[in-house]
């Protein structure tokens, strides 16, 4: 499918332009509304559809293999932490799904490392990364192997 924009719903806010990973959602200078300028470089990732505050963007299955008359609609609600999907088949069959998108208030549990505990002296020369070895939850040191066991060639 490639995405397209409904003339009466789009207000030209540009959220889709801001988010599109393929840089194909642009504001049309004549209509001052969003348009997919390169449908054949659309991955149908739905980033623009999810970002649109006016439900103005939809997708129509790619012309070269998708018969018409279907729809896949989405509503992503960040405050509720959910995403809801409605799939309609060409023959009218309908399926609905809701999934969580996060388990925590947005961003609050991601550490700001500039303010976190500094690494210990000399740790830069070790093999451990931030939060390790504790973060591995193994109550052990980071695993390693002895170089004496290395074999060259066809031995495995």
């Amino acid at each position, binding site marked *: 499918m490639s995405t397209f924009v409904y003339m009466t719903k789009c207000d030209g806010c540009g959220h889709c332009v*801001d*988010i*599109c*990973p*393929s*840089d*194909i959602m642009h504001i049309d200078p004549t209509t001052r509304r969003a348009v997919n300028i390169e449908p*054949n470089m*659309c*991955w*149908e*990732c739905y*980033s623009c559809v999810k970002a649109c505050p006016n439900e103005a963007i939809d997708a129509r*299955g*790619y*012309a070269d*293999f*998708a*018969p*018409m*008359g279907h729809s*896949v609609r*989405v509503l992503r609600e960040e405050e509720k932490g959910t*995403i809801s999907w409605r799939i309609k*088949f*060409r*023959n009218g*069959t309908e*399926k609905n799904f809701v*999934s969580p*998108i996060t*388990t*925590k*208030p*947005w961003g609050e*549990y*991601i550490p*700001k*490392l*500039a303010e*976190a505990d500094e*690494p210990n002296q000399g740790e*830069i*020369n070790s093999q451990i990364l*931030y*939060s*390790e070895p504790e*973060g*591995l*939850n193994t109550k052990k040191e*980071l*695993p390693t*192997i002895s*170089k004496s*066991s*290395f*074999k*060259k*060639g066809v031995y*495995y």
Partner: protein
Amino acid sequence: MPKNKTVYENCDVLVVGGGMAGTGAAFEARHWGRDLKIICVEKANIDRSGAVAQGLYAINCYMGMQWGENQPEDHVRYARNDLMGLVREDLGYDMARHVDSTVHMFDEWGLPMMRNEKTGRYQREGKWQIMIHGESYKPIVAEAAKKSADKIYNRIMITHLLMDENKENRVGGAVGFNMRTGNYHVFRAKTVIVAAGGASHIFKPRAVGEGMGRTWYAPWSNGSAYALPIAVGAKMTQMENRIVLCRFKDGYGPVGAYFLHLKTYTQNANGENYEKKWYEQTKKLVGEYIDHHPTPTCLRNHAFIQEVMAGGGPIHMVTKEAFQDPHLETIGWENFLGMTVGQAVVWASQNIDPKYQNPELTTSEPYVMGSHATCSGAWVSGPEDLSPPEYFWGYNRMTTVEGLFGAGDTVGGSAHKFSSGSFTEGRLAAKAAVKYIQDQKAEDINVSENQCENFREIIYKPLENYKVGRNEITAGTVSPSYILPIQGLQRLQKIMDEYVGGISFNYMTNENTLKKGLELLDWLQEDLEHVGAEDYHQLMRAWELKHRTLTSQCVTEHTLFREETRWPGYYYRGDHMKLDDENWHCLTVSRRDPKTGKFSMEKMPVYHIIDDEEKKFAAS
């Protein structure tokens, strides 16, 4: 020459690409380098960029060491088996021993992990995969990068790396342009971590009309992961090891959860298990590798391709049994909605309800990447405690260019890292980059104004080509003096498809076609001096094409060098159809001389740092 502003930025750690690897690098760099200036540059918007832009329904690389599920050495055995023996085991082990701490952070940050109700552990999809509700996987890791980095630049395409003029073979930063403002951006940096994307769209895709963008791998992954290091003479490895995916037809919807969790299986049009039919034939090509368990991805592809060529298609996934369970049916659909919405659209449009109808599968066009069941990429140093001498030169994940690091799809040899492993590899590269700076290895770097100005001229040339050439013709897209990016892209795809083992030739190539392919690629490379871009968006497409073409040349050189068929099902060397362990149980390494543009090839040894005690053979 258009009047574009030049914006200068000096920093210590420059991360090119803000996907899974890039966000991991930006995040970790701050822990080790508290006072360093850390910048991340992204071609799109970091909140939805890279291969994980639309989400993921599984994390495909998690050991579960805390529950004794797997150890890093098990993952090394798994990855080398899947890649027919050839991986960098040091890099793989290193990624695997750290990946659990990465996943535990994702859990803490709010990524919804599914849990097994009985055990309380993460819900396993398969031995290595755990299931998630990952629609917001990318925005979550982007948030972590934003909290660590001094600045994130969105909508800037990095086109070239800058080189130090005081010390040979040392990196000095990168340049690019902003596709919104048109500004020219110069980043002078002490270290650069290339965490850009692998390459889709270098081989002709199966869909060539409006659906051209529905490749399995994201269309915005344009091979910058490779073109940037190749252009400055960094060594590359295993670039011939392209990947072909067996996926649901047209939408390329994922099959992992279907095979592993829903326990669906494949059959040919007559309802037969076709894989068994091709066992003897495959054994003649690859010997005992066909007996390994699990069957390597390429060999399963091989059986699929042979069966279709023999007229046994279409091949179907048998879903009708599993989908009678409403819980499994939900998983089957949410699996697509979480990472490949397009497959749901295809099924809705063609009234394919897998509860009542077994959906069709296909094999994809080839892709070049370093993080999936394949390991193309830069030849990098491993960690000090794990790497034999040929694999170690001071700093983990540093390429053969000093100060230039790689992570994710950029790094060759470390297969099966997927999203979590790519983020982990970004963390490893970032720590090493900070250490490199602390060790005073990045002193007295000189990137002259002259070097920056030269690149400025080169970068905007496609705009000039178009402006001048466009005045010669009345209207339309046909010009005698320039080609448009889409025209060049389709020419590249046709060359690669027909001469380097694409879908039209059932992945077949040989010395003669490869040599012809190289000749045609040379001419394309020359013609790309005349690519015309109408605006900044097309200028981005022009540079994407240039990066894809350089990547393709490297892929073709490697494919010519390796005189065997190591991975039947990924591609075939018709003139050397058998796997040849005697001569080719080695890694291929290339270097392109930046002055002459010529590639040189060498063999590097494969070290097996893990024994094969756990090797299991398939029952049949």
